[in-house]
């Protein structure tokens, strides 16, 4: 008996220890795969645990080490490259970056807590566009980067700097334009006898979808946990989710038209829901790799997801403008984005700001943003630079059937806008948690009514902000 008790004791303590350790290791696994990301989680993919890595000049003396947070592991590759380049060019100002990768929600919540409590902010941090406005309330904890951005300003798409600004001051350094496009799996379309080049309007999309359905496949994703398709449909009509003061505008005729169309596609069986709730989740990468869905509508940064998570689709994907409404004003918009900030409490703020703006906005930086990350750079001059657009060695250009720059140049003059206002996190939260899921299901709710409900809920939640 005593023996047994001893054994039990050891066994139980071992279990305790194990579970505690396992708890430590897994505390950060809240990445977005279970769905329910808060709306515009555009770049929220899958960094599955908290990791810190240091790069740049890690051994020398007289090195300034910046603590940096991001929620996209891939971004680290850019910062690593640019830190090393900087050190080569500036022997007197050596830097190192201690980069911590955290899941999307965790990182933003942690940053918010650091600001609210006044301690523990990183020196440099990636902030997702949908979250940006909420950090600009009260005393702003971010450094005013206006004068550092000035020297690059003329080459950069102005709206991408504007979205990270308040009161004429620029607080965030943009990463990409994020032009929204359609990714077609041509294998599926060919099997159904559809040529993606003929899909210009949503009517064409519907006709093609019915053929694809008849051939036993699914045309597109009915996104229940992300508003990307709803957003593009609004932007095409020149409408928005909030007005410039941040008040929700979800019950407009344009919004109702968009959601009614989405529901029609769902009811006809053209679009179906996807595991994970939207295409930018690990479960969805699996479903897409199996070749079940013909279309994904996402900003161009989604290219990197194909390369990193769905490489069996190499050569099968064509990029094209998103279908649009007849007589629509636009057929794309800049979706998602990351503004990188320097904290007011950062050490050697001046150096941090100079490095950051150089790393992301200089010609070198913009080229690396394309080469390493596959994002459409904010410097539109590069879109026509043959050394970029015709680079045979570029892995992104090799992967896709079509050249993304052709598509970009095609839609460059018809870019709509979805503003990032203080109301957006709330509106997205309601859309992505409730409205879309209520409407896009069997016997789903009436789209107009659902949007009226969403509007009144959003108005109330935003009542005194």
């Amino acid at each position, binding site marked *: 008996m005593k023996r*047994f*008790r001893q054994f*039990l004791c050891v*066994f*139980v303590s071992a*279990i*305790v220890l194990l*579970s*505690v350790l*396992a*708890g430590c290791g*897994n*505390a950060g*696994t*809240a*990445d*977005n*795969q*279970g*769905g*329910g*990301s*808060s709306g515009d989680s555009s770049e929220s993919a899958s960094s599955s645990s908290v990791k810190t890595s240091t790069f740049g000049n890690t051994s020398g003396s007289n090195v300034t080490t910046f603590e940096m947070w991001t929620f996209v592991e891939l971004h680290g590759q850019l910062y690593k490259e640019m830190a090393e380049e900087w050190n080569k060019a500036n022997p007197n100002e050596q830097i190192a970056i201690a980069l911590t990768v955290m899941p999307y*929600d965790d990182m*933003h*919540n942690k940053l*918010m*807590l650091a*600001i*609210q409590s*006044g301690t523990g902010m990183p020196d440099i941090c990636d902030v997702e566009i949908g979250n940006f406005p*909420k*950090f600009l*309330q*009260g*005393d*702003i*904890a971010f450094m005013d980067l206006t004068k550092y951005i000035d020297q690059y300003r003329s080459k950069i798409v102005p709206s991408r700097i504007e979205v990270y600004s308040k009161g004429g001051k620029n607080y965030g350094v943009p990463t990409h334009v994020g032009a929204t496009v359609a990714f077609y799996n041509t294998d599926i379309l060919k099997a159904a006898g559809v040529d993606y080049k003929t899909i210009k309007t949503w009517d064409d999309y519907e006709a093609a979808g019915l053929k694809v359905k008849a051939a036993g496949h699914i045309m597109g994703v009915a996104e*229940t*946990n992300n508003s990307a398709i709803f957003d593009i449909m609004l932007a095409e009509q020149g409408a928005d989710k909030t007005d410039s003061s941040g008040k929700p505008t979800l019950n407009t005729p344009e919004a109702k038209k968009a959601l009614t169309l989405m529901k029609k596609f769902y009811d006809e069986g053209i679009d179906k829901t996807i*595991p994970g*709730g939207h295409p930018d989740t690990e*479960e969805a990468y*699996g479903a897409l790799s199996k070749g079940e869905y013909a279309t994904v509508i996402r900003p161009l940064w989604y290219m990197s997801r194909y390369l990193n998570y769905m490489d069996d689709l190499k050569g099968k994907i064509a990029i094209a403008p998103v279908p649009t409404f007849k007589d629509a004003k636009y057929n794309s918009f800049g979706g998602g984005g990351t503004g990188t900030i320097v904290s007011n409490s950062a050490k050697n703020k001046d150096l941090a700001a100079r490095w950051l703006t150089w790393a992301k906005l200089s010609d070198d930086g913009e080229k690396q943003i394309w080469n390493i990350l596959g994002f459409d750079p904010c410097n539109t001059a590069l879109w026509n630079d043959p050394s970029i657009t015709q680079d045979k060695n570029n892995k992104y250009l090799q992967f896709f059937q079509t050249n993304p720059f052709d598509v970009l140049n095609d839609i460059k003059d018809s870019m709509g806008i979805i503003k990032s206002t203080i109301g957006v*996190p*709330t509106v997205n*939260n309601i859309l*992505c*948690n*409730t409205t879309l*899921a*209520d409407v896009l299901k069997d016997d789903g709710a009436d789209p107009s009514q659902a949007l009226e409900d969403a509007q009144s*809920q959003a108005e*109330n*939640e935003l*009542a*005194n*902000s």
Partner: protein
Amino acid sequence: MLRIKRFFYNQKVAPYMFVLPFIIIFCAFSIYPMINTILMSFQKVLPGQTHFIGIKNYTRLFSDKTFFIALENSIKYMVITCALLIPFPMLFAAMVNSKHMPFPNFFKAILYLPALASVVVSGTIFRLTFSESSDSLMNEIIGLFGAAPIQWLRVSSTGFTVLIVLCCWRWTGVNIMYFISGLKSIPRELYESAEIDGASSVQQFFKITVPLLKPTTIYVLTISIYAGLAMFTESFMLWNGNNSPRNMGLTIVGYLYRQGIEKNDLGYGSTVGIVLLVAAMIINVVQLKLNGLFKKEAM
């Protein structure tokens, strides 16, 4: 010097000295935050800029549908867990404690094990087990019976059930421990004399065990009410974040977190917290009153 010494050796002072560390910690980490929360619930709180806005947060709260969804979820969860996590652990405790039970320690350990796993781990495992893809464990199991895969965590009824199952799986063992310790204090003689009088095991359970376990039951009920209303982590891990479809897993604490942290509105978050505090207090005071805790002889 002598006076100081006398002060410390004074029998009247000594007890206060002993509880002083607790009092200090309690004031710093409970009383002060509580008072501050009450203040903040009347304020609009932004980094560096805070001002009073009267009862605006409260009027907003009472027309906030999402808050009432959260309130309903928390209360539903609390009621169901109390209804399940008191009778069954009591029964299991009586069984484990019974002299007819083979390997009692083995069962005690097995039943207690889930409580040792961290919520993070168990929530993640449950999420994967009940994943909607057709090759998740649960969908494979129901597939054996010919059923179609279910989107477990996207449908309110199944989603909430998974949450309850997770809770029961984790907490049954803990409550069993409480009940076993309660059982140990029931004198053996009562059972022996009942047996001599010809009482069956069932009769013994209902006539002796249940009434004499009342103090333990009240204790377990009180902490279960509190734990039920304050639940957050289980839902957070099960849906991999604070956002579940149609807010089916949103709890009051989850809503507090969403408003206070995720939306940078600590004033409104504090208001939600105050309502939670008041609700938990009222329910527990009523419950304790009904159970006669405030009458001395009941204990």
